[in-house]
């Protein structure tokens, strides 16, 4: 044996000598050139990163700038035009345009020459003139060359109204408690407005809780009769008993209803008795109920503190109030809430589902061709366009599943659907389906990265496979699983296309969570920030009016996704810290 080893040693020595001799003939370049050192690739890689960063920073800057400046009060320009017409409005933006030949022909020679010198281009400014009920138009383009004079009178007031958008003009008189005050001061107006708004809120409170409650009870009684009819047959004693009970109860409730309606009418009359007469810049005067004024200020007479006050009050309204004016004004609270609830329900659905599927795939299934095939399918599912999931969600979840639930549990409400139409539950389920591949892939990778030594250590202690998974593998894999969940939530919260078919609406009458039993109403349709952006920006009467709202809503959506992620990342880091001393 030893001889053999010695012999083979000699053979290998011989071979290496030969190799060295032939390698010596290869003439090596002594200096490494640029491509060998990889410099151009480093530049390309750095450049790609810089390009990506620039795009992200630019995008964020755009959203942030437009979002944060949208609510800052603007001055009101009063423009006297060469034609003698006077308009008042907030300047929105100025841009170059090309006046038509006809328009040019009508212009004085001096101005025309100026325009021709600029290659036929002139500037124009977009003014938000408001007063839709006076003019039938909110915005107006004013060519700069038509402006004769521009002033900022201190008495110009901007009023945000419950209806009809902004009012730009002056308040001429205030009628309150049977008295009429001409040219009321801001303090007088504030006091009257507070009173009128208080009355309006009182009326809405009665309508929502009192009248709404009575209506719901009457409807429940009607449904109980219908239920008895379905369960026991038409004309059965049970049904007749239910009908008799419903009739007497309804009679009592009708009395309540009439009383409440009377109250509402009375409050409304008191509220509408407080009115203001306001004139637009041209002098046309109209009368409005003062409760219609949401916010008003003398735009050209604001101190910095007052401007900040208006700014903050607009943000507060935006974040906490319901939308008005076809969503182009007011708040987005229902959309924020809807997005939040939907994302949380989605995460609650997708987490156990995805984690268990991945556990089976990685830990229990026999690794072979079938498992590989399943894995490929799961990965490909992540690439299916989301609208396809939406169609599936509507077809299967809402119509098939929801329809069956309605048949079984809510037959008395048919043909109006309960679960058999788009709603929060189906939207969350659809998104859960959409994001489950992300969770499965992340969980599988995370499980695979748990060191073998950990499993062996546990098994050697006599732990079963399940005990090992429960106590050793899953806790170790949790940070990775959380990463998957974060990705899923970020994707789910920002998804719009499938939601448009499975339950998101332009304006939801009720929040999905409220004080009415059973408190969480998964069947209700809901509002969503992503859809709100689309709706305000592209589906509203006046896309110009929705422009700023698009940016502000986008900002809020980004903030919401960020907040949800921050919570998950915090949880993940907490888990990770447990393995901080880990060296292998």
């Amino acid at each position, binding site marked *: *044996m*030893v001889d053999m*080893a010695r012999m083979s040693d000699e053979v290998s020595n011989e071979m290496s000598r030969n190799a060295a001799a032939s390698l010596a003939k290869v003439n090596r370049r002594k200096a490494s050139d640029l491509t060998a050192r990889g410099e151009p690739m480093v530049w390309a890689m750095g450049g790609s990163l810089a390009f990506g960063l620039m795009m992200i920073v630019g995008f964020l800057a755009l959203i942030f700038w437009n979002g944060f400046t949208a609510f800052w009060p603007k001055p009101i320009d009063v423009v006297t035009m060469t034609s003698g017409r006077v308009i008042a409005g907030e300047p929105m933006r100025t841009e170059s345009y090309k006046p038509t030949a006809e328009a040019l022909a009508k212009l004085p020679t001096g101005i025309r020459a100026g325009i021709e010198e600029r290659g036929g281009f002139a500037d124009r400014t977009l003014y938000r003139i408001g007063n839709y009920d006076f003019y039938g138009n909110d915005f107006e383009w004013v060519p700069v060359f038509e402006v004769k004079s521009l002033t900022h009178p201190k008495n110009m007031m901007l009023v945000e109204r419950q209806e009809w958008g902004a009012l730009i003009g002056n308040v001429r008189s205030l009628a309150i408690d049977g008295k009429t005050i001409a040219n009321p001061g801001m303090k007088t107006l504030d006091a009257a407005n507070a009173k009128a708004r208080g009355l309006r809120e009182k009326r809405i409170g009665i309508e929502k809780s009192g009248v709404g409650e009575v209506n719901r009870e009457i409807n429940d009684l009607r449904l109980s009769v219908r239920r008895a009819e379905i369960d026991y047959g038409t004309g059965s004693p049970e049904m007749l008993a239910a009908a008799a009970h419903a009739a007497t109860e309804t009679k009592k409730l009708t009395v309540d209803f009439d009383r409440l309606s009377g109250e509402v009418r009375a409050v409304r009359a008191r509220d509408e008795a407080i009115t203001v007469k306001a004139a637009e810049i041209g002098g046309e005067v109209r009368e409005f109920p003062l409760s219609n004024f949401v916010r008003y200020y003398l735009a050209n007479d604001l101190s910095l503190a007052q401007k900040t006050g208006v700014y903050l009050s607009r943000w507060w309204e935006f974040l906490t109030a319901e939308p008005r004016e076809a969503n182009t004004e007011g708040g987005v609270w229902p959309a924020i809430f809807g997005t939040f609830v939907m994302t949380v329900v989605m995460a609650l659905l997708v987490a156990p589902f995805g984690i268990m599927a991945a556990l089976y795939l990685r830990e229990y299934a026999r*690794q072979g061709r079938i498992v590989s095939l399943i894995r490929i399918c799961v990965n490909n599912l992540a690439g299916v366009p989301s609208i396809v999931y939406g169609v599936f969600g509507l077809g299967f979840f809402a119509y098939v599943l929801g329809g069956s639930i309605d048949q079984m549990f809510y037959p008395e409400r048919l043909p109006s659907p309960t679960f058999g139409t788009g709603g929060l539950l189906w939207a969350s389920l659809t998104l859960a389906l959409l994001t489950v591949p992300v969770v499965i892939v992340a969980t599988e990778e995370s499980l695979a990265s748990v*060191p073998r*030594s*950990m*499993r*062996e*250590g*546990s*098994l*050697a*202690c*006599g*732990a*079963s496979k399940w*005990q090992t998974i429960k*106590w*050793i593998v899953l*806790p*170790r894999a949790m940070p990775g699983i959380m990463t998957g969940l974060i990705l899923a939530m970020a994707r789910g919260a920002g998804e719009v296309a499938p939601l448009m078919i499975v339950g998101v609406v332009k304006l939801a009458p009720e929040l999905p969570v409220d004080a009415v039993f059973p408190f969480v109403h998964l069947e209700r349709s809901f509002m969503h920030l992503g859809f709100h952006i689309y709706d305000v920006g592209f589906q509203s009467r006046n896309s110009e009016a929705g422009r700023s709202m698009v940016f502000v809503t986008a900002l809020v959506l980004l903030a919401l996704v960020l907040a949800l992620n921050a919570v998950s990342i915090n949880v993940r880091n907490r888990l990770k810290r*447990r*393995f*901080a*001393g*880990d*060296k*292998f």
Partner: protein
Amino acid sequence: MATATAARKDEMPASAGTDVYDPTVYHPVQSPSGVELSIRDFKLWYGSAQALHGVSMEIQKGMVTALIGPSGCGKSTLLRSLNRMNDLIDHLRVAGDVRLSGEPIFGPQVDVIALRKRMGMVFQKPNPFPMTIAENVTYPLKVDGVTNKKLLAEACEASLKGAALWEEVKDRLDQSALGLSGGQQQRLCIARAIAGNPEVLLMDEPCSALDPIATMRIEQLIEELKSTYTIVIVTHNMQQAARVSDNTAFMYLGRLIEYGATKEVFTNPHSKRTEEYVTGRFG
């Protein structure tokens, strides 16, 4: 062949059929308390590659048995077969008869979990779980469903004392085990292995990731533990084998070449190949 009657202790056990190799030289020290693990003609295949070619040996109760040999000789494979850790590997096949105190280890009726509870194992790299020190030590009891706090605390203290770690960690039992040094982690793993009150301790190169001082402590510990447990230790370090073991088995290419009293294996090996290995001429 698996049911071959036990040969007399001073004789060679029955060996595999096709034997073009030298038969095993067999002269282990006998334990007064008998045999703990008997291995008869044990063969093992990873897929189509055979890793063990009919190993037969008897591991003596209450003694330290060292498995030595060059890399890839099958000593770790043999050790990991004893508590069936190799079950985790796909396409693994075994043949032969291995018995722990007379009870078979391989076979369809064997409860692997019950088997593993009778043998503690210490791995090459310390592998404490990401839990507190106390939780690590009492993990085998947690597996058994013990929830009595007093019982757990007692077992924790006893095991840590048994692993000579108690004095160093008694004030920080509720801190993460991952904050311990490598040597402490390995002693923690030994404490964990003995907390389940096993009969046998299997050690797979327990000092290869440790510095000399930590190694010395572990060796002292092995010395203390061998009165209570039967210890099987795989090691690359021949001085270590010479220091701690009573019997030494030298393996080469999946075969047991020599199994005998440690002193003799290192000073007067009966096999030529063993001599070459222990004198450092190959391996």
